[in-house]
């Protein structure tokens, strides 16, 4: 077989390649839409979405292969039927955002298939009219067209992912500015600051914040005081029991928090530490300890030993070496670990729920959750408080994402 024959055999227009991948994706989304229509129990919606799903699947099955021209005709007919059904439904029913979106996922794939199969290189290939020259030029053209189509698809997928992520965020912000405790209503239909005023103007929110700040700072300090020396020792010294104690730290990280919940509560209750910050500080700094030790060990490992050895030769004691050389060099890492334990304590919910039974000792998580009891939920106040609490945390997470992930994966992967 000569090279040109291979080109003919290999050549599939970029458009057809894209349809092969994306029609199943569109079908999947239409299957999801069928599910939603079943939930809505609207008969014509169900019918239409099932028809759309079937049309897309059939279209995928009947995609031209470059040899059988009748497949092109069949595919064209199916695509046209899909477009017509989608358009009819667009005009026949009320145009909510969901309807618009779901119809787009029928009309657009079918429409683009219709267009590509009726004009352009894909159309002539599909009707079986391509010779080796057309295949050669088509392969060259694919190289240019494919990346553009791919990046369009990539952005479509990412935009969908982003929508799923961002909708709750926008919604809660909208609720925080909506009057009363209504959950419905269009986004941005009303504006009031009453919830912010009632939360930030009242004493309750600031009480919870104060408790959270005390607990989080206390946890950070106690946790670091325990973790820094241990991490340093694990990184630098080879001592009897090193392996054993490192194993112990790894094991504890695997322990389910649930099994300590009850005994922790009993111990704290017996010692009279329920409803106090000290109880939570002790519990948090110990539960975060293994991960902090692992993170710090990883960071200390990256500080070169030569510096310390030089300092020791110059007459520093080991303690001085640690405080004068190692600690300043790994200060950013220590700050990261501090941030990590601060955030862990700031966001913790279960232990705070179990340890604190009175409103005065609630931390922010338990306090905010207490605004949403089984009945009589104060959504507006909750939303306003959530926005206020989340903003600094989110900024910190985004600013320090790389370092946090690095530390966490050091703990998770190596441990």
């Amino acid at each position, binding site marked *: 077989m000569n090279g040109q024959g291979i080109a003919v055999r290999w050549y599939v227009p970029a458009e057809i390649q894209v349809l092969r991948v994306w029609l199943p994706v569109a079908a999947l989304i239409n299957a999801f839409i069928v599910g939603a229509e079943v*939930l809505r129990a609207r008969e014509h919606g169900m019918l239409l979405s099932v028809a759309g799903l079937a049309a897309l699947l059939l279209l995928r099955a009947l995609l031209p292969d470059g040899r059988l021209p009748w497949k092109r005709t069949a595919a064209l007919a199916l695509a046209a039927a899909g477009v017509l059904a989608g358009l009819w439904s667009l005009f026949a029913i009320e145009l909510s955002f969901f309807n618009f979106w779901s119809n787009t996922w029928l009309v657009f794939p079918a429409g683009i298939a219709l267009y590509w199969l009726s004009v352009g290189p894909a159309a002539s290939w599909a009707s079986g009219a391509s010779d080796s020259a057309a295949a050669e030029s088509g392969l060259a053209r694919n190289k240019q067209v494919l990346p553009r189509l791919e990046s369009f698809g990539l952005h479509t997928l990412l935009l969908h992912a982003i929508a799923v992520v961002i909708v709750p965020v926008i919604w809660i912000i909208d609720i925080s500015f909506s009057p009363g405790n209504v*959950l419905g209503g269009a986004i941005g239909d009303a504006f009031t600051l009453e919830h912010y005023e009632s939360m930030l103007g009242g004493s309750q929110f600031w009480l919870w914040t104060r408790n959270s700040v005390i607990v989080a700072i206390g946890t950070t300090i106690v946790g670091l005081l325990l973790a820094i020396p241990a991490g340093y020792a694990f990184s630098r010294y080879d001592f*009897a029991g090193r392996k054993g104690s490192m194993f112990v730290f790894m094991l504890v990280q695997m322990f389910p928090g649930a099994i300590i919940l009850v005994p922790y509560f009993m111990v704290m209750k017996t010692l009279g530490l329920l409803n106090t910050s000290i109880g939570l500080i002790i519990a948090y700094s110990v539960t975060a300890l293994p991960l902090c030790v692992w993170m710090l060990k990883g960071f200390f490992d990256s500080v070169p030993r030569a510096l310390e050895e030089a300092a020791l030769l110059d007459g520093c004691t080991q303690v001085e070496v640690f405080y004068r050389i190692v600690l300043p060099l790994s200060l950013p890492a220590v700050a990261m670990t501090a941030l990590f334990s601060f955030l862990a304590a700031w966001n913790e919910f279960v232990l705070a729920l179990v340890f604190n039974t009175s409103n005065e000792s609630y931390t922010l998580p338990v306090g905010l959750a207490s605004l949403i009891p089984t009945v009589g939920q104060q959504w507006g106040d909750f939303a306003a408080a959530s926005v206020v609490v989340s903003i600094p945390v989110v900024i910190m997470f985004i600013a320090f994402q790389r370092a946090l992930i690095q530390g966490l994966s050091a703990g998770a992967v190596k441990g």
Partner: protein
Amino acid sequence: MKRLLAALLAMATVVTAVTAAEVPGVSLHSGEPEYRRIRIDVAVNPDSDVEAYEVWFAGQAFQARSEATLHSILRVGSTAGLEQPRPGESFDDCWSDGEPAHRDERGMVVIAPETRRWSCSLTGMAPGVDQWIAVVPVDGDGSALSAVAPIVARTDASDERTPPPDTRPVLYALGSIVLSAIVLLSYLRWSDARRGRHKSKLAHIYVAPALVALAALTFYPILYGIWLAFTNADQSRLGDEVFIGLANFTGVFTSPGLLRVTLFTFIWAFGNTAAHVVFGVVLALLLNRAGLTGKTAYRTILLLPWAIPAYISVLTWNGMLQPDGFVNAMLGTSIDFIANAGSARVVVILVNIWLGISFMMMMTSGALQALSKDMFEAAEIDGVSRWDQLRYLTLPNLKSTLVPVSLLGFIWSFNMFNTIYLMTRGGPYVGFGEPGATDILVTYVYSVAFESGHYGIAAAWSVLIFLMLIGFSAVYVKKTRATEATA
């Protein structure tokens, strides 16, 4: 016996009840306040064709059952052959005509049709605040036979019923654990010195605080928890619990919801971990495409579920899924996703998937960036297709990250209390003394311990969870080791 006497005494004080409401067929009084419990005494008309009595409660006045929470159901029917557990043996103590009430094999209270008076001590009431309680007689279809007329009652205002417990046992135990940790470390230091490793003489002092804290505050509670599992500890017996052998464990293994809650826990943990890994890897691969415009913006937004405090996200989803929330507004429906067992299960899993993808994406992204570019360039030159590059180069190289992270993710999901507690509190209600429809083991332990107050039973459940997780991790590690050895 003492409690029974107190109960009878309380029945005698019906005349002096705090409040009373009269509805046809039922008259309801609140009895003496108790610790985290409210006692109700109910006089009923035995002639009516009532099939069951529902006890509803709420933290505020209510006129309809939809505004309140169902506390328990008492069935009316034949009590022949049913057990009469003594007070204190079941979650709520109930009496009919002054005798301990009968219970069927599922633990539900059954009242004989001729009963004129019954009473219950309702557990799990918020201490020291007003609670509205209504008893609603219902027929076979569950429709109310009388108006809902709640009464107001309070628990014993003080949160501490028992005198301050004896702290000595705990302090002795903590002290001895700290001492033995110090002794162990000193021994290790001495053995180092004997072997002539003088360089490391400070190491043991550096490690000591962390190890001692770990021993005292992690190992001791775990051992204490294991001990509790063999005792009759509960909220009214703090500090003087007694060893009762394997009774808690037999209770756990014969409890009606054990299989269901275990199965759902595993579905929950597997489903979540699988979805986290799949979506996380897919998103990381998409974001890793060379020349993607707006990469930073996408990445920052996709990070949000990880960055926003989890309890806030979960409560937000809870609001979005309310009948008047965003999801229903979008669909043009008013479905109560959380009220139905099936949809509640699906919804809690979806919300937890939403929460966890970002983290997995970030982990995978980090690992992807660490892969060598040369490898892919070489593959490109050799004409390896994109798909084969992914299958034979990217995924095998990600394995060393994904295997431990997914094990950790499984354990995290297994223990993910927040999502379920804040979405459904384990509900919808399934049966008395049973885990709710969306309860996983962890949330059920919480409700046994802190809503019903049975610390011993909860500790037995915890031990069971612990054994399950150890077993799972061992199998997982073995399996992955085996595949790594053959790879």
